[in-house]
């Protein structure tokens, strides 16, 4: 368990946190710029000193104002991937990678450099690398120092779109193969959706929501970040089976609900994450006998939120623990005579799917 209970006044920003994180998996730290995301991870890394409180990583108490413990950064065993990579310009890639590597385990070196695809770069100097390559080397360098936790400060933020696309698969691979907790700072919801298990929302230095991603995603604290047309839900599911004739895959949700999606090449029971936009969900009172839409779920109306203009509304639907949102016009809502508790059929036109298979290793 990681415990971060600290206070710090930085100019007008007062950071105050009480976070408990699991010892595995990726936690995304999300908030607008200036909300204190980077300051918070600098406090954890020891690059800033809290005014009070305590930080514990596993059994290792690295800061405690009462017991006067304040370990310097080099004794905290926390890897840090900076937004700007910060490779040492006077050292070759291989020397950069080994800077914090005390074990010098050749197998581990091979695994990490292969995982990040940086084997061909070892003899080069940082100045000759692209932005994406620099970030990969920086990640490798942090991992090779054998940290008990990894902090990543918007590693994609300084890259252009093609470079982001180039680095993303490495990050996805990394998140499934590294067995240490990762705290990932980002202000991109798409990145978070592809990588994170847990989500922490931070606003003006305070933690306003904290928990499993799907849960925080549908919490009211999240609404300000999702424009109405982008309203969506996130569902965790498992791969159930492949269609014998068509290139389709069935996914099992909780309480025996299942959804069809375009074929995913993965084994049964592979965990996947679905994002369903409210605009892709339409409602019907009776399921039509024949429809091009494959996914029709029987749900109960939980609540209806009208937009500020009053022309459209967001219908929150529920089936057991599964929640889905549907965005429809006010006219349609009136004609359907929607009311709380009513049973209705949700037709899901499309969804985006991310496999989340965790392979223990490294």
């Amino acid at each position: 368990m990681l415990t971060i209970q600290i206070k710090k006044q930085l100019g007008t920003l007062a950071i105050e946190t009480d976070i408990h994180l699991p010892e595995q998996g990726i936690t995304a730290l999300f908030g607008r710029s200036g909300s204190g995301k980077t300051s918070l991870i600098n406090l954890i890394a020891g690059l800033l000193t809290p005014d009070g409180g305590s930080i514990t990583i596993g059994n290792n108490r690295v800061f405690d104002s009462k017991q006067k413990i304040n370990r310097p950064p080099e004794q905290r065993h926390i890897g840090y991937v900076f937004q700007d990579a910060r490779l040492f310009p006077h050292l070759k890639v291989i020397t950069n990678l080994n800077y914090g590597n005390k074990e010098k385990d050749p197998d581990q070196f091979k695994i990490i450099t292969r995982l990040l695809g940086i084997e061909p770069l070892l003899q080069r100097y940082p100045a000759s690398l692209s932005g994406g390559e620099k970030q990969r080397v920086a990640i490798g360098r942090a991992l090779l120092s054998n940290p008990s936790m990894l902090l990543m400060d918007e590693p994609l933020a300084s890259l252009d779109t093609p470079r982001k696309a180039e680095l993303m698969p490495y990050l996805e691979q990394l998140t499934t193969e590294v067995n240490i907790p990762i705290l990932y700072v980002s202000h991109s919801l798409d990145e978070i959706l592809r990588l994170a298990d847990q989500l922490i929302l931070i606003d003006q230095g305070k933690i306003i929501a904290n928990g499993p991603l799907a849960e925080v995603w549908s919490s009211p604290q999240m609404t300000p970040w999702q424009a109405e047309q982008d309203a969506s839900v996130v569902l965790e599911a498992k791969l159930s089976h492949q269609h014998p004739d068509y290139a389709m895959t069935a996914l099992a949700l909780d309480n025996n609900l299942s959804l069809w999606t375009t074929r995913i090449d993965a084994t049964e029971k592979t965990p996947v994450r679905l994002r369903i936009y409210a605009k892709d969900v339409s409602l019907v009172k009776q399921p039509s006998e024949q429809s091009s839409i494959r996914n029709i779920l029987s749900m109960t109306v939980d609540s209806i939120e009208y937009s500020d203009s009053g022309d459209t509304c967001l219908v929150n639907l529920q089936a057991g623990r599964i929640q889905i949102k549907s965005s429809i016009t006010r006219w349609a809502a009136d004609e359907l005579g929607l009311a709380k508790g009513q049973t209705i059929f949700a037709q899901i036109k499309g969804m985006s799917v991310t496999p989340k298979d965790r392979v223990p290793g490294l």
Partner: protein
Amino acid sequence: MLSEYEISALLLSLKVSGIAVLFSLPPGILLAWVLARYQFPGKSLLDSLIHLPLVLPPVVIGYLLLVSMGKQGIIGSALNQWFGWSFSFSWRGAALAAAIVAFPLLVKAIRLSLENIDIKYEQAARTLGANPLKVFFTISLPLTTPGILAGTVLAFARCIGEFGATITFVSNIPGETRTLPLAMFSFIETPGAEAEAARLCIIAIILALTSLLLADWLSKRVQQRFSH
């Protein structure tokens, strides 16, 4: 090609300047580091003291050295008594005079370079498990190399040219303290030795030009490594 007299003056100049710069480097880097990175009461005073030799007449420095480091001087007599070291009228005194006169140039160049290093590299090194000492020797110092090179060359050139403090402190003894400028001065003072003075003048120009070219080549090599 060169007379024995000229070779002796040239070699002495190189020895005096080389030793002066070599011994100035560690304290120079240390003081540059302190001035670049720390705030403390009396910092301005320390900074001014270091820069004093730059603005004082060299003859004043020579006089002060004579009073303090000479055989009868307060520090000089103690050093002579305890260690048997003597600066007066020897090439070591010439090196000391040169070092003091060139010291501000050395510190200034290194300090500027240290101030230009982004502390973000040092922070990154700390998170990789390096203690401040390791960070200094593996990150800060190598990144300061261009500044150290520039400072070294500047200080070396200043040492080669040193005249006033040297002649005041250790006099003008052939083979011991008669460096290039002092040798040239002697020829100018001697009637009919204009040609010899001119030859030394050319040697001085060649020496200065060579060291500048060498410094330029070295710093280009360093820059290349940092930015391919």
